[in-house]
């Protein structure tokens, strides 16, 4: 029986010719990731296992990004614990503030992820690396501890849904609109326990940054992972960023999919997800009059160069609406520097936006832009759950950087087409 791309990667890492959906397997890991929220919970478990050393010091990555630069004493203590662990274990891939970035923007940029890898991360958006043709999935802290100790873990082999993409997106439309549109169609549990496998001619029309954004939000449809085929764009990206060995897997011709969706990219509108679920989507043309207090542009979903360039294109020569806060936070230090060099930082500041150091901060309601009761934000992040960015009675609308930037100028949810 044919296997999906995900199944083939898992089979290889389990030392097997064939695996089938539903089967429980043990697979070798190429990378284990944790952050400053999940790693402190993993460390005591690591000790309880009786482990003294990580399985491979090049394959354990720790990124303090959620409450950094340290928000308060508690977060400083957490960061201290993981820093001490990184020193004790002599971890090569621990990234301190100053060289860090939001983990899922950072790992591909640092060349730590290549096609065909199997990666677990104690962060749900670990699924981002599917953009590079790797199998990557979010797990909890205990799983992280066991992964660090053994270099392997158990998986239930997932079924898959196939998303066949054709055509080309209209101007202003990006990967963010495509993935919001898909989640709107299938729902927040539409791909629960399954892989979302993207394919078709349309993939070639997506930039790598589009693909990172789309794979990033696979978890928002409940998926175990999202994965893209490896093409010339992927290989160029890999050559520019990594010296690691990689392996390209392709789904079998006769792979079995639980569902197949045909999606013509040219029909996808600019899309906004209303509170309090990413599935509550509407085309921006149908949102009505919605006043906004804060705009957040960045995160592991939309904090890359494509996103910042799009934001600058909209903000250039304009001003952020009076009494509105516009906060822009890049994915990594490298992106930050590029934005400065390209003159984007100047455009942001002149428009009256805040241009922050990389951090998860506002995305999870941690710090650097919390919402008060009754306030409303348009955000390029990935979740708009109750209380996600602050007060339980605040609201988050998810959108692309173009829509978010346009909304920052007008003070209400707006399309960049009508500025």
């Amino acid at each position, binding site marked *: 029986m044919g296997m999906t791309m995900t199944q083939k990667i898992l089979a290889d890492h389990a030392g097997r010719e064939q695996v089938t959906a539903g089967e429980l397997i043990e697979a070798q890991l190429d990378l284990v990731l944790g952050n400053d*929220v999940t790693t402190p919970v993993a460390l005591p478990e690591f000790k309880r296992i009786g482990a003294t050393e990580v399985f491979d010091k090049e394959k354990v990555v720790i990124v303090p990004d959620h*409450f950094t630069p340290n928000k308060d004493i508690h977060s400083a203590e957490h960061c201290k614990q993981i820093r001490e662990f990184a020193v004790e274990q002599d971890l090569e891939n621990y990234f301190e503030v100053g060289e860090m970035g939001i983990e899922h923007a950072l790992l591909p940029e640092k060349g730590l992820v290549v096609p065909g890898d199997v990666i677990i991360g104690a962060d749900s958006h670990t699924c981002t690396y599917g953009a590079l043709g790797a199998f990557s999935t979010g797990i*909890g802290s*205990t*799983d992280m501890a066991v992964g660090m100790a*053994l270099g392997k873990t158990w998986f239930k082999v997932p079924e898959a849904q196939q998303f066949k993409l054709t055509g080309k997106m209209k101007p202003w439309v990006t990967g963010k609109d495509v993935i919001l549109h898909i989640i709107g169609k299938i729902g927040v549990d539409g791909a*629960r326990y399954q892989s979302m496998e993207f394919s078709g001619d349309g993939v070639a029309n997506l930039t790598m940054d589009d693909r990172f954004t789309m794979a990033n939000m696979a*978890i928002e449809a409940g998926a175990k992972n999202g994965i893209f085929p490896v093409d010339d764009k992927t290989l160029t990206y890999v050559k520019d960023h990594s010296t690691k060995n990689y392996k390209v897997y392709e789904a079998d011709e006769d792979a079995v999919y639980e569902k197949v969706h045909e999606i013509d990219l040219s029909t996808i509108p600019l899309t906004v997800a209303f509170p309090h679920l990413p599935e509550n989507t509407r085309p921006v043309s149908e949102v009505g009059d919605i006043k906004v207090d804060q705009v957040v542009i960045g995160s592991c979903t939309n904090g890359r160069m494509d996103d910042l360039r799009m934001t600058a294109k909209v903000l250039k020569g304009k001003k952020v609406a009076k009494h509105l806060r516009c906060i822009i936070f890049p994915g990594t230090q490298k992106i930050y520097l590029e934005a400065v060099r390209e003159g984007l930082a100047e455009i942001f500041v002149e428009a009256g936006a805040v241009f922050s150091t990389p951090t998860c901060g506002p995305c999870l309601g941690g710090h650097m832009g919390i919402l008060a009761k009754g306030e409303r934000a348009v955000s390029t992040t990935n979740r708009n759950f*109750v*209380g996600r960015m602050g007060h339980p009675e605040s609201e988050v609308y998810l959108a692309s950087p173009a829509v978010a930037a346009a909304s920052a100028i007008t003070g209400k949810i707006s399309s960049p087409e009508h500025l």
Partner: protein
Amino acid sequence: MIAQGKAFVYGNNVDTDVIIPARYLNNSDPAALASHCMEDIDAAFVTEVAQGDVIVAGKNFGCGSSREHAPLAIKVAGVSCVIAETFARIFYRNAINIGLPILECGEAAREIKKGDQLEVDFTAGTITNKTQGKTYETQPFPTFIQAIIEADGLVGWAKKELEGKA
């Protein structure tokens, strides 16, 4: 193993941000986490919950982040098990790994009302609603997951693996 307690009932897509809001994740002390459990969906939960009580919910319980703080907060708050129509993948895995029993049972999830007195037998896989006088059968755990539970969670399982290597 048998658990007894009253039911707290919630709807579909209860996410990890309402189970334990991210603003409290700068602290990983289980008791501190438990004191904010379910705060954004049910502010009275922490004052009303008693040892052994059961959370009952609809589809996709625990969707969202990978924070193990979510099942941990629920467990430390005194909840003996969670019954839902379906669970989100990472929550399911985390709950097993830390030893919070979870049961998928659509019928029970739809019929149990807030405050109903429940008795849950994990070995037999039965849920009894003493208030309504009804019993439901659920799927037992797959054998591999039973092995993890028998090894006292994933850590116990990994310990054996590591000893095997040495």
